[in-house]
């Protein structure tokens, strides 16, 4: 029954193969990453000096909004879904995902949704300009007409995420090879299983929020409009009830990747497997009950504010445990520092720094000074870029040789790592200073005392952007002409079912389930 892939464009349009769909997701996410990145380049170019040099403030607001939306929903989430599609079936010894045709649909609606959203840049009224968090009434009563396209696009990509999550849960719960109990599953599978439940719980809430927006804008309801008895603050509660679990949705799969790479290059098993599983589950559970720490300044009564502060600080505990576990994995191992390991180590350091600033912003009275400033921008870029994006990059270097049977150029990749690392830190470390000095976020222009660090940050951004183009070059060159690799265990220290398969992996794998001891 198994045969090779179909030919031509039809292969990609109609594929139900998890490897092909994983590839589609990954290329799509990288294209979105470059799109969102070019919006960031425009932002940083404008912020290079005080004054409006390149664009007008109205367009700047479109750039910051689209940068956030494209990066969160178009780049980082699809990238990890792509990794999930590629790796989960192989890691559990399954031939494919549980619902292959729904898998195809989940992917193909994404380019449509993002083409729709990006096209608003060229429509009258311009693209969404109310921040990726789209608070009402700026996003309802005061929004451009294109907001309806934005809402439609959000619904579509939400549906994609929900379908993808259903697929992942159905696959992991029903299709593991005999002998693979839940507590024998690889960490990447565990983190995705938990993430998929989070997605199913909260993406519909986002859908609810944008539906309420749609109704307020077009059908005369007053969910968020005080005039009709509604409340703009209700929007924030509904949005952040989605929004906080969303950031854990972004980071948990990234944690999973690190839990594979560090043991491989330390040649030592992951330290504390069960506590890593429990920590991940605790983080996921806690993520539901801390949302209002994004709202410390809306005018919450003190009891609520204290509760959310305490609950938020709690999340630091399981997260710290994970960091300690990774370091304990490295400790007394036998380490080599190929590029995936470099990115994974950088993840541990820089994500931890982001975690520190996270604890700082959780302190509600101090948040009076941090909220809506560049300090918060620095915090979330540390956890999302040096966290999730570095982890995704590490995953590509780690698994690409397995996928295509060719090794990337290690020297060039190390250069790419260092340029990324330095570029990232030069961009975002000074943003802590800007926030502390009093510069708010989403500012198209700034007072003169903020000039110096803004210039430094912009220089770093151009450097980081260049390093991503280098990454693209390295990946394409590897696929086309990298040194062939044929060992199943591409990396000496790699363990797991996926490393028992031939390199490059065949189009169909585990048509017969393996035995797991």
């Amino acid at each position, binding site marked *: 029954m198994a045969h090779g892939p179909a030919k031509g464009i039809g292969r990609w349009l109609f594929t139900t193969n998890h490897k092909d769909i994983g590839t589609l997701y990954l290329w799509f996410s990288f294209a979105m990453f470059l799109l969102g990145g070019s919006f960031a380049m425009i932002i940083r170019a404008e912020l290079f000096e005080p004054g409006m040099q390149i664009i007008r403030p109205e367009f700047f607001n479109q750039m910051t909004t689209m940068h956030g939306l494209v990066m969160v929903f178009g780049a980082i989430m699809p990238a990890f879904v792509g990794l999930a599609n590629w790796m989960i079936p192989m890691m559990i010894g399954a031939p494919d995902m549980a619902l292959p045709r729904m898998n195809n649909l989940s992917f193909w609606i994404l380019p449509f949704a993002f083409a729709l959203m990006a096209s608003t840049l060229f429509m009258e009224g311009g693209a969404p300009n109310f921040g990726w968090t789209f608070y009402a009434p700026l996003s309802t009563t005061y929004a451009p007409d294109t907001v309806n396209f934005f809402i439609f696009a959000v619904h579509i990509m939400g549906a994609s995420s929900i379908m993808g999550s259903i697929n992942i*849960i159905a696959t992991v719960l*029903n*299709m593991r090879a005999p002998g693979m109990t839940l507590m024998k599953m690889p960490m990447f599978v565990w983190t995705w299983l938990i993430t998929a439940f989070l997605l199913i719980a909260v993406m519909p809430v986002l859908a*609810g929020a944008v539906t309420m927006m749609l109704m307020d804008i077009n059908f005369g309801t007053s*969910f968020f409009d005080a*005039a009709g008895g509604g409340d703009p603050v209700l929007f924030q*509660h509904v949005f952040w009830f989605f929004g906080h679990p969303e950031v854990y949705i972004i980071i948990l799969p990234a944690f999973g990747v690190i839990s594979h790479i560090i043991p491989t290059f330390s040649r030592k098993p992951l330290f504390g497997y069960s506590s890593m599983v429990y920590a991940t589950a605790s983080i996921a559970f806690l993520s539901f009950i801390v949302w209002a720490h994004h709202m410390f300044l809306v005018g919450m*009564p003190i009891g609520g504010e204290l509760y959310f502060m305490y609950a938020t600080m709690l999340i630091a505990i399981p997260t710290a445990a994970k960091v300690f576990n990774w370091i304990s994995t490295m400790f007394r191992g036998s380490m080599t520092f190929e590029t995936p390991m470099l990115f994974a180590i950088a993840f541990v350091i820089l994500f931890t720094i982001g975690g520190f600033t996270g604890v700082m912003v959780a302190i509600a009275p101090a948040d009076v000074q941090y909220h809506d400033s560049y300090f918060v921008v620095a915090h979330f870029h540390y956890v999302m870029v040096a966290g999730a994006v570095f982890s995704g990059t590490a995953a590509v270097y780690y698994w690409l040789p397995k996928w295509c049977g060719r090794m990337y150029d290690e020297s060039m990749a190390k250069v790419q790592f260092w340029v990324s690392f330095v570029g990232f830190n030069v961009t975002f470390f000074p943003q802590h200073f800007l926030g502390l000095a009093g510069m708010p976020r989403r500012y198209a222009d700034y007072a003169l005392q903020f000039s110096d660090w803004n210039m430094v940050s912009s220089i770093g951004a151009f450097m980081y952007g260049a390093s991503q183009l280098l990454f693209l070059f390295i990946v394409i060159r590897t696929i086309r002409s990298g040194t062939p690799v044929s060992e199943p265990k591409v990396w000496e220290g790699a363990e797991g079912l996926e490393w028992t398969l031939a390199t490059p992996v065949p189009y169909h794998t585990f048509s017969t389930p393996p035995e797991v001891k």
Partner: protein
Amino acid sequence: MPTNPVRATLVKLVVGAAGMFLFALFVMPPLYDVFCEVTGIGGKTGSAYQVSEAGVDTSRTVKVQFVATNNGAMPWEFTPKVYEVRVHPGEPTEAIFYAKNRTNRAMVAQAIPNVTPFGAAEYFHKTECFCFNQQPLDAGSDADLPLVFIVDRDLPKAINTITLSYTLFDVTDRVDGAVAQLN
């Protein structure tokens, strides 16, 4: 290929997702409103209050301030007649806001109340209020808008100043036929 267990999982998850969507749309807003009304969080005050025979607490005086804001491009003149009063808890007191429609077209307004500090909102009762209804005014007309309020005797001792603010919204477009009823 295992379809039955997969289908069972699929059905459960679809129901779960749909449930969360309906929860967000139909449970979260009313839950939020009820929570706000019961706790006074957000400064929301309730609807008309039925006076009980609790009597007046003359041992305490509470300062009540009045604040008025026009929302958006609302062009009416809208001010409290008096900036503050001092009342005893339990004592019904009248306050008046003045509104004038300065334009040359008939309009309808809605006043939305808000009480600060939020902890006082559940102890601030209105037995009559112009905010309970929409306010139509002809072009050039003005009106004295009354409210009667009582500060609950159980107002926490730590609260001595209450600020009642109204935001006035233009709801002319939302009101079908009401404008035609003027003159």
